[in-house]
């Protein structure tokens, strides 16, 4: 074990290289660039033995990963914001083809209004593509989640692509220490990739051929079942990784001081980490409030949120908005509660466009929700 003091991007790259993908295909985009540059450095030093394909766009990056994965290779890529959006068609493709591609996405604002700071609209807008989606809150969690992502994606009950999201700059470009286990630990944990289907000239099949409604229907249902399976496997794999490495960041959610809480805050990503400080402050003031940081939004942890709704009222912070509707976590948490719980849910839109969200802001939002002065969902910190 060694300590690596580095940025989220470089620690993510380290994890990807240690998982030994046979093919990495990537196209640089701010703020993901330093992640793929780091992988290129591993290639230059001869420490990464796989194929590294420099492609001409993100659409091609995902297409190359799909081709490599269909040929039976473990694959990895990374992108951000507009790059992720350019992949959109191929994201559906990878998931429908049941190819366990692993990708890091650095959450960045979508233009116009050219802006490279953090918000989560990029990956949130891809939530219906069939990819499993994690959101990290520290560099250690990025390392551990990338390793777990390979194990999960390639599991026979899953066979779906997995996206590991990390917030632009707050994580991607901020140095924090992370414990890096021995290569042998990662090898033993992830194992050798055994494809669940592949293109093989000795066993020829046609892939992506025409299929009628009755078959297509089954393909969609099988994806849904795989996502449901992930609800059991994500906690299992997180527990197994804890045994192997000592690190645990929660499973579908990370619960922080939820015992006896009458109010529970739901948040994601870096705001989730900042929320812990806000919870400490409010608990010191005698308020019964806890935090449930949502690590996984697909599959959506509806049962867990329902359980929280039986215990407490919910306060939900979204660093995203589905325009014309609501913040997506707020919207889906309420859907989970429907008919099962009388819990009150109050939502906040915060931190869009990279606007800073400090623990003090989080505390202000929570207090507003708890004293009933907040609207059902409001825009926090809007300066007119």
């Amino acid at each position, binding site marked *: 074990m060694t300590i690596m003091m580095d940025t989220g991007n470089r620690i993510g790259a380290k994890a990807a290289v240690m998982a030994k993908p046979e093919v990495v295909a990537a196209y640089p985009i701010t703020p993901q660039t330093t992640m793929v540059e780091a992988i290129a450095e591993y290639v230059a030093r001869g420490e990464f033995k796989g194929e590294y394909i420099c492609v001409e766009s993100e659409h091609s990056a995902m297409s190359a990963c799909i081709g490599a994965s269909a040929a039976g290779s473990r694959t990895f890529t990374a992108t951000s914001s507009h790059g992720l959006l350019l992949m959109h068609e191929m994201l559906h493709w990878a998931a429908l083809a049941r190819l366990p591609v692993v990708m890091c996405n650095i959450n960045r604002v979508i233009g116009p209004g050219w802006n490279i700071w953090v918000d989560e609209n990029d990956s949130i807008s891809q939530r219906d593509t069939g990819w499993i989606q994690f959101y990290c809150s520290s560099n250690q969690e990025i390392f551990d989640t990338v390793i777990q992502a390979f194990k999960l994606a390639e599991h026979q009950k899953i066979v779906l692509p997995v996206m590991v999201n990390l917030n632009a700059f707050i994580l991607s470009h901020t140095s924090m220490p992370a414990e890096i286990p021995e290569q042998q630990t990662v090898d033993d944990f992830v194992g050798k990739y055994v494809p*669940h289907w592949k293109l093989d000239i000795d066993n020829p099949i046609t892939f992506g051929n025409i299929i009628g409604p009755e078959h297509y229907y089954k393909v969609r249902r*099988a994806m849904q079942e795989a996502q449901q399976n992930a609800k059991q496997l994500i906690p299992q794999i997180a527990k197994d990784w804890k045994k192997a490495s000592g690190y645990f960041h929660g499973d579908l959610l990370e619960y922080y001081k939820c015992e006896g809480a009458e109010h529970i805050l739901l948040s994601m990503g870096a705001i989730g980490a900042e929320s812990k400080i806000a919870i400490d402050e409010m608990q010191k003031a005698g308020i019964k409030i806890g935090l449930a940081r949502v690590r996984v939004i697909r599959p959506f942890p509806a049962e867990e949120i329902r359980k929280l709704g039986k215990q407490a009222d919910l306060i939900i912070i979204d660093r995203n908005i589905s325009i014309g509707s609501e913040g997506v976590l707020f919207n889906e948490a309420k859907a989970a509660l429907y008919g099962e719980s009388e819990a009150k849910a109050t939502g906040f839109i915060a931190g869009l466009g990279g606007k800073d969200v400090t623990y003090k802001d989080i505390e202000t939002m929570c207090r507003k929700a708890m004293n009933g002065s907040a609207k059902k969902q409001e825009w926090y910190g809007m300066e007119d």
Partner: protein
Amino acid sequence: MKKFAVETSLSYPKKGAMGKTGSWRVFKPILDKKKCVKCLRCWIFCPEGSIHREKDDSVSIDYDFCKGCGICANECNVKAIIMEREEVKKK
């Protein structure tokens, strides 16, 4: 033939996996065996494998699966294949 457990759009080799696609045809290739010089261009170019090659290199057309694309007629240097509109059967 090894089958995979994953449910996605995988098709295993067999004759006519999509049914008798010859029903899609609008134009039908008609082969004049007297003109045919056994050059096998039609056999090479047919995208559907619907031209059958015999041991003596003579050819025949499998109308169960020929979709009537006309590539064989286009490629035939001696005009041994012509395309005719499929007749609609009168009641």
